[in-house]
């Protein structure tokens, strides 16, 4: 790439030869690996610097106020006593740092049950979605059976119809599964099996598998490898990035979902953490409620910390490249 102003992330700053910059003090110069709307040249001018720092500082301040402060307010709110909680004007730092509010929420609201339930639903959904969707995408991409294209089209067509609009018939199906006549309400199956029916997973996996050279597969076939063996030893090892994306999406979706578990898991012993907390919102003091909210958000934030890279990759997956 021939980019005149771009420099590699340099060990020593490359001197800007094109222009005698106002050299008042030797300062760190703006260089960029990637040229953006503003040129380094503009950023390095005196006013450019001033405006840049003004924008930078105000962005950091505004972002902290808008996105971090509410969370701070939530975490500290749960530490306040009921009296301090309702005080006007509020205290910005709680008068005591105690975890009593959290302990109370944990004991009163059955949070351990809700968390375990959600964990069970999320990982079950992950296992089923991965096993069945990988199998299906592999069959459609590499084994190419009769009517494979029709099936693929029918699976991708479900992408056009968001699950919310078929909420009611889907609920009735779970209540009384046709042919087998089973009532899956208040069982984990109500989350696990519908999680498999995800056209987006099929789309992502199939597209990835399509890019694996057929010659590689045929070579293995000549060596007498069975389709399952090929899947295990050739396809899966090279597909780890996409498996990561699909896994995280599946787990996070189950964790975030509200409407579906609200309908199919109404038994208080079976609820997910979101639905469970919401169901108790009328009967709990606000401090306890707030503590419960903090506890409910910890798992997803931890997942985010651990898998930040995959999540960012997943965001731009699915043909969203600009």
């Amino acid at each position: 790439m021939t980019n005149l102003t771009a420099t590699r992330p340099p060990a020593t700053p490359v001197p800007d030869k094109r222009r005698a910059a106002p050299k008042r003090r030797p300062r760190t110069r703006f260089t960029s690996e990637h040229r953006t709307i503003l040129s380094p040249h503009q950023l390095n001018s005196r006013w450019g610097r001033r405006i840049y720092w003004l924008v930078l500082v105000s962005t950091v301040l505004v972002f902290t106020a808008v996105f971090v402060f509410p969370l701070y307010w939530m975490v500290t709110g749960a530490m306040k006593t009921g009296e301090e909680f309702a005080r006007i004007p509020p205290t910005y730092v709680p008068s005591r740092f105690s975890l009593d509010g959290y302990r109370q929420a944990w004991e009163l609201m059955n949070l351990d049950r809700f968390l375990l339930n959600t964990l069970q639903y999320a990982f079950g959904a992950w296992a089923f979605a991965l096993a069945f969707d990988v199998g299906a995408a592999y069959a459609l991409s590499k084994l190419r059976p009769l009517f494979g294209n029709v099936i693929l089209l029918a699976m991708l067509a479900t992408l056009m119809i968001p699950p919310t609009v078929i909420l009611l018939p889907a609920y009735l199906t779970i209540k009384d599964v046709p042919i087998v006549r089973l009532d899956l309400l208040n069982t984990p199956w109500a989350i696990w099996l519908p999680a498999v029916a995800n056209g987006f997973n099929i789309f992502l996996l199939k597209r990835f598998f399509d890019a694996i050279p057929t010659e590689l597969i045929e070579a293995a076939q000549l060596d007498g490898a069975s389709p399952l063996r090929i899947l295990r030893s050739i396809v899966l090892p090279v597909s780890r990035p996409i498996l990561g994306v699909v896994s995280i999406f599946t787990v996070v979706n189950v964790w975030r979902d509200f409407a579906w578990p609200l309908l199919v898991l109404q038994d208080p012993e079976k609820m997910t953490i979101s639905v469970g907390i919401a169901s108790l919102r009328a009967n709990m003091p606000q401090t306890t409620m707030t503590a419960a909210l903090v506890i409910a958000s910890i798992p997803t934030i931890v997942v985010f910390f651990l898998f930040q890279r995959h999540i960012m990759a997943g965001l731009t997956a699915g043909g969203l490249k600009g």
Partner: protein
Amino acid sequence: MTVLQSRPGGRRTGRRRPGLAVRRNLTAYGFLSGALICFAFFSWYPMVREFILSFQKNNFVDPPVWVGLDNFRTVIQDPAFKSAWLNTAMFTLLALVCGYLVPFVIALVLNELRHARGYLRFVVYLPVMLPPAVSVLLFKWFYDPGPGLFNQILGLAQLPALSWLDSKDTALISLVIVSTWMNLGSGTLIYLAALQTVPGELYEAAELDGAGVLRRIWHVTIPQTRLILLVMLLLQVIATMQVFVEPYLLTGGGPEDATISVVYLMYQYAFNYGNFGGGSALGLMLMLVLVVFSAAYLRLSRDNT
């Protein structure tokens, strides 16, 4: 990568034997079976059932009766029907103004900054990681007219307190604020990724031609990211038209139906009035509207790859 050269011609002659083809198909369907069953039961069948339900009267005790368009008539005559659609449209529109424009502007600014990038990206994405119900319940407390955070802030700024969720005038916009806050991050990061693919040479050329910052955005950035902007527009419309959690947890559709949404009305028909026919009729209408947007989205995103 070492790739075996495929021999030209005659490569597939061995496959012609019928026994092998049958076996290959059987194996393939074996791999497909799990997903096929799940799609059939939990995706395809419910779609068909939505049509059937919306033309039937069904109390799940007696055998269902076909009633033609009766369910649609009932639903349309419900005074809440008009409010639900108007609110959903208004919510979508407002959420677009806030949730579509704002992330793009934020992404533009973030893309120019050379410091604190990791922090800013992390922070903007933080709310997306909270379960939506948590964000919504958190804001319910902020909206509290007494000790709620927002009225405290207004008080500090010497502004009159608002009644937020309790007033017909501010309830809907309150929902939009929560929704924007918790969804902003993903849009921002997607735009940011798109902005980084814009070739720097184009900006340089524009600059040499004397284009100022705004004109560089208008003539370089926006045309270069046009496709993703369109795709995100459609995605956002599709997502916000299904709004349910916010009215369900914050307002219960009130005050005076000011925040009732289509999906929430559908929920009420089924679970409060026990009228699955009416609910399905609503679902079907929403489905038809969304299919148009979804089809456009799929077309665009396919052209893109």
